[in-house]
């Protein structure tokens, strides 16, 4: 009687310990993220004071602004101020737009998320079946196609492919709309609710706008979807090969189950657990890939915001964007880890 209770207690304390360790890891990673961005902000050759007052301001004005900005303090105090500011969601003011950086990011971020979400959906929709087929018919034509599609996905410059896609599908064929999120015509009549235009159009029942939005998003989202598909199909193939070699597959065959049921019902279901992690990671990758894609398609999201700010030496905005993308990265990694533990019962007992 005593023994199981002791074991349960030990297990509970072990879990508490692992959760605590987990939190420490996340906290130090985040601290590192802030330290790196802080360092980048300080080695920047552009004096932030001069960026505000201009280079013709008298010396005493420069000195006063420097003090107001806390730039005369020792570095560790500056870092403390910076860190507490960031944790409160204060990234400073953008020199370019004169808004708080946080407000800017809140405005542009839904556009990036919408693009990355649609891209990941496209990637998973095509990538998983392709990967499964490639694994089942190993060495066949479809396996070769998946391999080549993957290789090209890893080798092609995304911004170049975007330019060519615009040239072919927008300029030559006229199948899709051009750069931007929607036509100017709709900008006055369309009312954003959530910032995700596809959802907004459905909520407000604005079908004309929805068509326009879809024809704008389809090209950049397919482009991102292609890269996500290259990754997802490759990983699906390798997970499936792993599952198909297991003994339970032999057992299922011996029971006389149909091949379809074995592949899609048994093998894929087990491969789905690591796949969730892969899809989450590919989503994070698309947030990064959106930096170049948004520049090509003039998509008003976080990526375009960062590159515009870069070109105007607007460091607060650049670092704010970097921290947000870095935070989302950490959060997605964390989430996929937690999901993995929840979905795979084998990791639970430890």
């Amino acid at each position, binding site marked *: 009687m005593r023994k199981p209770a002791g074991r349960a207690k030990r297990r509970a304390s072990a879990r508490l310990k692992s959760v605590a360790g987990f939190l420490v890891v996340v906290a130090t990673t985040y601290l590192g993220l802030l330290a790196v961005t802080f360092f*980048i902000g300080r080695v920047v050759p552009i004096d932030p004071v001069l960026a505000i007052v201009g280079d013709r301001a008298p010396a005493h004005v420069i000195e006063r602004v420097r003090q107001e900005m806390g730039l005369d303090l020792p570095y560790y105090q500056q870092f403390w101020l910076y860190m507490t500011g960031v944790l409160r969601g204060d990234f400073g003011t953008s020199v370019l737009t004169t808004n708080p950086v946080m407000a800017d990011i809140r405005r542009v971020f839904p556009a990036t998320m919408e693009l990355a979400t649609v891209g990941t959906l496209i990637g998973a929709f095509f990538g998983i079946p392709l990967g499964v087929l490639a694994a089942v018919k190993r060495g066949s034509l479809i396996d070769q196609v998946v391999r080549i599609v993957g290789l090209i996905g890893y080798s092609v410059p995304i911004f170049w*492919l975007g330019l*060519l896609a615009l040239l072919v599908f927008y300029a030559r064929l006229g199948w899709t709309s051009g750069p931007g999120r929607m036509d100017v015509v709709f900008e006055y009549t369309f009312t954003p609710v959530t910032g995700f235009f596809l959802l907004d159009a459905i909520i407000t029942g604005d079908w004309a706008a929805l068509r326009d939005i879809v024809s704008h998003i389809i090209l950049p989202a397919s482009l991102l979807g292609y890269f996500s598909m290259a990754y997802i199909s490759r990983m699906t193939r390798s997970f499936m090969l792993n599952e198909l070699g297991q003994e339970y597959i032999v057992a299922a065959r011996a029971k006389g189950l149909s091949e379809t049921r074995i592949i899609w019902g048994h093998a894929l279901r087990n491969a789905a657990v690591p796949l969730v992690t892969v899809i989450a990671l590919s989503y994070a990758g698309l947030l990064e890939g959106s930096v170049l894609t948004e520049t090509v398609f003039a998509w008003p999201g976080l990526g375009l915001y960062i590159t515009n700010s*870069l070109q105007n030496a607007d460091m607060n905005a*650049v670092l704010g964007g970097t921290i947000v993308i870095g935070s989302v990265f950490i959060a997605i990694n964390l989430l996929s880890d937690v999901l993995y533990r929840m979905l795979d019962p084998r990791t639970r007992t430890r």
Partner: protein
Amino acid sequence: MSETAMTRREWLLTDRPQSRLQARLGRAYVAWRRFTANRLAVVGLLIILGMVFLAIFAPLLAPHSPYVGDLAKSRLMTPGPAHWLGTDDQGRDILSRLIYGSRLTLQVVLLVAVIAAPIGLLVGTVAGYAGGWVDAVLMRITDIFLAFPKLVLALAFVAALGPGIGNAIIAIAITSWPPYARIARAETLTVRNSDYILAVQLMGASPWRIVLRHIMPLCISSLIVRVTLDMAGIILTAAGLGFLGLGAQPPLPEWGAMIASGRRFILDQWWVAAAPGFAILVVSLGFNLLGDGLRDALDPRGSGQ
């Protein structure tokens, strides 16, 4: 004739090599045979060798100057016999610029590899061999860098350092060493408690000597594979930085920057932007094929799938 070939082959494949050289040559021969059995990998190797050839002999091979064009007569010409790939908006021959651009690509790839791989190797082997708090601290730092999206971090670094190809190389190197550290640490952990390391320890070798002379050489082959596989990514990041105007500056014929300048004419003179992008695609593909082939040849464990 065939008899000498056979004996040479037997000499290489013998189970009892007489000298260290023979053993090494034998292993290299086996790896080479495994590598050349993979057609695509050989194609990749040929692509890379071709690019190195172009880069070395660029002045001899390029039909025109990469920097000076005829503004009056040859702006934005279509591909033809005079200019095989046409000319750009400043009348410069695109083919010549591509050939010279291979030098920049090669420079970026080599410098990033030379900077990032040793850093990763050192951090990983020291962390793996030392263990304890040294390991914990070094690996935390590595994880912090791994947690960053690579391109965005490189962007932020270049923003701070200022645009230019040198700063782009530094930024990419800073963001690409962590995976190498992880690999080197994993390799170190597998050999750390093996008998030969214990033997060297008993002979009184210092920790540094053990790490440098007895552990690092074992990590090299898996590191080379990983670096080769990463080179495509390095090229793409460098091109992305060039495209955003943060990498190589005009008039340097960097491929990403060439795409950016051709972007304005994409609707009518599409070849100006298409040609450099295709060059990037071919070279990245070459590195990916080569890396896949090397992984299968040097690391039979990872080639199971």
